[in-house]
């Protein structure tokens, strides 16, 4: 926090307006950032943070307004110009070529070559190693992107920017996909970067991260500039209410659970991952009506495979899954959803949750299009479909309120709301929620948590998977800890001890 040089303004955005057709995504937003500063951008889902940063990086052209870099007015027509001015951006959804190596991804577009455009990968690898050592960004330059963890992929994205000589680094929700350990590493990296005089603009929904790394914070609400504050002088609560425009409560208020009979029973489940390795190893689990069961665990302990097996997306090698005493092991996803009434909010919303080219209304009926009132004798009734969509949009506060927007053009958080609206309105007996609040703002998180609790209070069962221990402890009634594909412990949420659970998550005994 001592590295700021207030005499040098690296980024000044002045009254920036960005319109998409009639829709105003950024409405006269101003932002000033100094050299060596970490500046946070805070705002609800769809507030216009990513749009503003895309304007700075040249992916969008602002409709109005000025941008100054290091005091000089510039017009950033495309990313090349931004790169030339020392601006680098790590996107909310990574832009990496999966079958390429780390080095190839980093140098793409600015390759080191010998004569006649022949690649010099050895020299490139050396350069990459140099930069990665300098900032403590450990990566294997020869590994393929598809084989490395999300955390490493993010380091590759940061290296990509640094390789291009970035002095100003934009990080769009960098922590949304990271595990707690990886987040701490990122914090260290950010400190290293500012110590070298780099300027950082970071978008995050996690208020404690803002408190931890940022010097200043600019808040926007529905495309409008609200305030820029010095982080040291405000509390998390104050930040939250500035952002949402009302008081928000972080604690989930709920009545004690009315636990009913057992609905779902998983016995000795064994599942393999894509590489053929057994990642769920004889897991057993019971889920009852009227309870929220949280599964706590570090990423990669078989959670994804467990859910995929449960939803019929992955083959069960051995063991049984029973729903209301019917065997549903290896049933088809369609049977599981419509006959057995298990619905899921998937972990990867863009791959599994939405058809990105479809509009909101179409996405909302993906599971029910064949039913009345949405279709009759195989013909879709668009009036009913859009009526239902408008209702969902109101109820779940999807922004903007337009059922005809494609899922692709919604902000990340609003994409998530569409999925939640679809699954909750199915009113399933069992609702499986994997990382349901990833990338959501605090207001929306409060909303999702309330939706899960309501589902429970109506006597339904909820299975919650999250890497965020806070979320698990706050929302669940009962907590099961998963480690290496097995449930290693179960506790009541009432008297859960964070340290104990943390220990079990790491494979330690209590």
């Amino acid at each position, binding site marked *: 926090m001592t590295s700021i040089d207030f005499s040098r303004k690296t980024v000044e955005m002045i009254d920036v307006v960005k*319109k*998409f*057709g009639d829709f105003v995504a950024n409405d006269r937003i101003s932002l000033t950032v100094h050299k060596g500063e970490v500046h946070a951008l805070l705002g609800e889902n769809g507030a216009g943070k990513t749009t503003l940063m895309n304007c700075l*990086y040249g*992916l*969008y*052209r602002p409709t109005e307004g000025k941008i100054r870099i290091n005091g000089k007015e510039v017009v950033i027509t*495309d*990313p*090349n110009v931004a*790169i030339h001015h020392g601006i680098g*951006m790590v*996107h909310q959804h990574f*832009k*990496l*070529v*999966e*079958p*390429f190596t780390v080095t*190839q*991804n980093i140098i*793409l*577009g*600015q*390759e080191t*070559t010998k004569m*006649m*455009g*022949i*690649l010099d990968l050895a020299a490139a690898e050396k350069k990459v190693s140099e930069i990665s050592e300098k900032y403590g960004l450990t990566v294997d330059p020869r590994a393929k992107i598809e084989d490395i963890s999300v955390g490493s992929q993010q380091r590759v994205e940061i290296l*990509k920017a640094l390789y291009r000589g970035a002095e100003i680094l934009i990080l769009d929700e960098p922590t949304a996909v990271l595990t707690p350990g990886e987040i701490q590493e990122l914090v260290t990296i950010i400190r290293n970067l500012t110590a070298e005089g780099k300027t950082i603009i970071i978008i995050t929904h996690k208020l404690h991260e803002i408190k931890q790394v940022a010097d200043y914070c600019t808040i926007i609400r529905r495309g409008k500039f609200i305030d820029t504050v010095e982080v040291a002088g405000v509390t998390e609560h104050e930040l939250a209410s500035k952002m949402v425009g009302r008081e928000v409560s972080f604690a989930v208020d709920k009545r004690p659970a009315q636990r009913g009979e057992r609905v779902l029973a998983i016995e000795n489940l064994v599942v393999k991952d894509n590489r053929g390795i057994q990642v769920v190893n004889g897991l057993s689990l019971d889920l009852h009506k009227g309870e929220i069961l949280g599964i706590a665990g570090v990423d990669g302990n078989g959670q994804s495979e467990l859910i995929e097996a449960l939803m019929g997306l992955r083959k069960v090698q051995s063991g049984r899954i029973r729903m209301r005493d019917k065997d549903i092991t290896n049933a088809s996803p369609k049977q599981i959803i419509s006959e057995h009434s298990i619905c899921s909010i998937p972990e990867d919303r863009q791959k599994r949750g939405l058809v990105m080219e479809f509009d909101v209304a179409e996405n909302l009926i993906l599971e029910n299009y064949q039913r009345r009132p949405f279709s009759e004798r195989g013909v879709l009734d668009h009036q009913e479909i859009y009526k239902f969509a408008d209702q969902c949009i109101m109820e779940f506060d999807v922004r903007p309120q337009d059922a005809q927007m494609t899922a692709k053009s919604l902000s990340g958080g609003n994409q998530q709301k569409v999925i939640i609206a679809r699954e909750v309105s199915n009113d399933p007996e069992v609702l499986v929620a994997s990382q349901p609040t990833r990338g959501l703002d605090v207001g929306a998180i409060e909303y999702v948590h309330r939706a899960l609790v309501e589902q429970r209070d109506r006597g339904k069962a909820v299975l919650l998977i999250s890497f965020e221990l806070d979320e698990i402890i706050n929302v669940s009634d009962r907590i099961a800890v998963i480690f290496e594909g097995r449930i290693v412990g179960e506790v009541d949420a009432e008297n859960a001890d964070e340290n104990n659970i943390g220990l079990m998550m790491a494979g330690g005994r209590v």
Partner: protein
Amino acid sequence: MEALVNDLGFIIGTTLMYSTPLIFTATGSVITERSGIINIGLEGMMYFGAFVGAAVAYFTQDPWIGFLCAGLAGAFLALFHAIATVTFSAEQIVSGIAINFLGPGLALFLSRLFFDGATQTLTIPNKMPLPLNFLFGDGKLFASTGFMDLVFNQFATVYLSIALVFVAWFFLYKTRLGMRLMAVGEHPEAADSLGISVYRIRYGAVMTSGFLAGLGGAAMSIAVVSRFSNTLISGHGFIALAAMIFGKWRPQGALLACLIFGGAKGLEIYLGAKGFPVPSSILATLPYVLTIIILVGWVGRSRPPAAIGKIFDKGEA
């Protein structure tokens, strides 16, 4: 014993000769698919190239000029495909089908115009040369008949096509442009965000595939045979497409696949010449049957470039 060796030489020789048009076309197809654009118009481009190659070779009496013009003719058709798919984001398969009608239509129209209403050209005066011919004959290194002659005394196009595979491999995996091309085919948004022009690269790739398909057509009409006729290409473009997929979108793989398909043709001709007691029309289906079997058994198993067939627009409003 010697007869057996000579028979083998005959099969290898015809295999190489018949593989050549496929190799040109399949290599071009690798390039365009790796950039993310499907080109099923290869058949039409080969067809048009075969006609233009033979016609120009007939009138100029120079096979090389014919060969070059065939490439340009293929690239000309590819330009339409590029405009439709890259600039106007048209459905790539539909555009390709249109090209497959356009190519033969144009070729037959021009053929009738220049060759007195015939749907075939006249025999060209000079075929593609045999560049190694000087090594074979009386008192030369090898005899003018026999295994060595059958296998190695081939048309220039044969050697060119094999060299082309190496060039394409080197281009894709060792050069800057090749890497950018593959990046565009895998993740165009990533390439775009790094300042690479997706549109320019895709135009280049589609035109290259057209050029090579044109060469493939001419390798048929001015080397394998010495005139263009309306049944000459009959499915070779689609076989090349299958070879590219069978070869897992790699030039070296496509080469191997083309040799297998060419081998089916070589076998067909050999068995036909030997008076094998199977009707020639059944034998002639061999390469096509092989294509179907391979496509059914193989397509699901290899991984195409991630962005193939998908529309890319910069998303700017």
